[in-house]
């Protein structure tokens, strides 16, 4: 059942059309990603959902409420983390949580939230003394302190170090596990691939795709390529006979297998059956970033789209 319904949303600032005829629904309990480059209209779209901006056209329903007309009721069910929002410099972590908790009649326990975000020992630290990552995590905690039904998180891991990002991802998964619907605005492909059930891809204000991460990857072709070296004699016909394999070739030292489906597993199993130990085993497959490139004509970030797999077939 959808908790957010956006239909034919349009918002322009003067001559610039930020969001143009965008429609999507977000189901209860899912993590829904909105991805796109800077300026694609992601933030404008979620600001309309959060009732911060009035759409020029189209309709939005959030938990059965009109974000503009039912603003006050919306605030109690929707937690929002915004980009570039600071707190007063001298405000301490514990005080910020206490203050924001007081805005809601029912809410989460600030102590549990802070512990979950690794801010437990920082209660008496002023906002200005927190690192960028800690400020970001506090901002997430404030978005969740009202125990919302829906949480909108805008660029939540921007500026975080890799470990903090992973911890934040775990937190988001826990949030969803507790029944909260999450709308995640991001330009990190690894993040949305890991977290999101479905994605809306925006480009220049328009919705160019609405699908699961796997579905998006499939759209750009399921072709996969495996390369490895092996010193032993290989039973090439047996390898070619695998239904997943389209072609197999060798330049004498290096083998290249092209195929689809669960190619990685099929080839690994066949090599194991032949008791062959490959070296430099690599699997390349279309990534979400390739999908984004194909959909919009430009890459989202500097990712190469190569997933390295070691000999046990585990993604490194």
């Amino acid at each position, binding site marked *: 059942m959808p908790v957010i319904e956006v239909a034919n949303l349009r918002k322009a600032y003067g001559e610039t059309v930020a969001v143009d005829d965008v429609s999507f629904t977000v189901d209860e309990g899912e993590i829904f990603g909105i991805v796109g480059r800077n300026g694609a209209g992601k933030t404008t779209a979620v600001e309309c959902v959060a009732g911060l901006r009035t759409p020029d056209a189209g309709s939005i329903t959030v938990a059965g409420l009109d974000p503009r007309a039912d603003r006050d009721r919306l605030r109690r069910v929707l937690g929002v983390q915004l980009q570039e*929002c*600071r707190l007063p410099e001298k405000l301490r972590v514990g*005080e910020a949580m206490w203050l924001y908790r*007081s*805005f809601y009649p029912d809410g989460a326990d600030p102590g549990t939230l802070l512990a979950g975000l690794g801010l437990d020992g920082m209660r008496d630290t002023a906002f200005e003394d927190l690192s960028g990552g800690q400020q970001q995590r506090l901002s997430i905690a404030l978005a969740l302190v*009202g125990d919302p039904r829906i949480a909108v998180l805008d660029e939540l891991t921007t500026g975080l170090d890799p470990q903090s990002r992973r911890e934040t991802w775990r937190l988001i998964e826990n949030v969803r596990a507790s029944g909260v619907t999450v709308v995640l605005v991001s330009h990190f492909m690894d993040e949305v691939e890991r977290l999101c059930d479905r994605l809306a891809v925006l480009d220049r204000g328009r919705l160019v795709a609405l699908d699961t991460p796997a579905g998006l990857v499939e759209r750009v072709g399921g072709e996969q390529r495996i390369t490895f070296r092996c010193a032993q004699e290989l039973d090439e016909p047996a390898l070619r006979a695998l239904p997943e394999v389209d072609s197999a070739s060798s330049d004498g030292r290096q083998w290249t297998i092209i195929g689809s489906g669960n190619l990685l597993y099929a080839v690994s199993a066949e090599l194991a059956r032949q008791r062959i130990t490959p070296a430099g085993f690599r699997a390349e497959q279309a990534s979400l970033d390739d999908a984004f490139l194909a959909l919009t004509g430009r890459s989202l970030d500097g990712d190469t789209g190569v997933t390295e797999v070691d000999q046990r077939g585990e993604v490194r």
Partner: protein
Amino acid sequence: MTGLPQMTVVEAKMVWRDPAGLLIPLGLPLLILLMHGMGGQGELVPEFGGLSGFDAVAVPIALTMILAIVGMVNLPSFLAGYRKHGVLRRLSVTPAKPAALLLAQVLVNLGLATVGLVVALAVARLAFDLSAPRELGWAALALVLGAAAMYAVGMLIAALAPSVNAAIAIGLVAFLGTMAAGGGFLPAEHLPGWLATAGEFTPYGAALQALRDAWIGEAPQVLHLAALAGVTVLAVSAAARLFRWE
């Protein structure tokens, strides 16, 4: 209003933890009092209804200054900073209203001004034998209306200023300009007539005149009180219309 008590507590802590902001509104008027007090303005002047220059001039100037600095400089600089850093925008997505934060700021700054007034009055009383205003009720009304007018101007400055520095600059110009024209530096009779008349109806000038009258024992002029009330109404309604949350 949701969260108002908590916001007021938090805003008070913010003011307390940034004591540099307290120095000018509390320290400068006190310094002026001390200078006047030690400068020997003790003799009683018939035109001041038999009060000393210290009682009839220096103390009203210093008290009005406290209200003017807190209202027209401190308040807008805080609010402009909150807008710049997205503090107001952040609040606008919670059930709390950003207006509650504005109100909390006004309350805290009123408290701050009250502390300033009490300290100044205590020093003037203990060190320089200040006499109580002869029209106590009128004096209180002059302070309340003066505070209202200056806080309203402060809100309007916060609404108009594009940046924190602009808010401080506009606030200082408003404070120093109205103080100069309103007879806070030089007695009004030393100013050109048109300037003195204009200055008399600025928030600073009108509050000073009303307070002096009350101290000497006269009822303040209706025009001065009306000017303060009028500025309050105009500035608040303009600020409410022009204020940007982000």
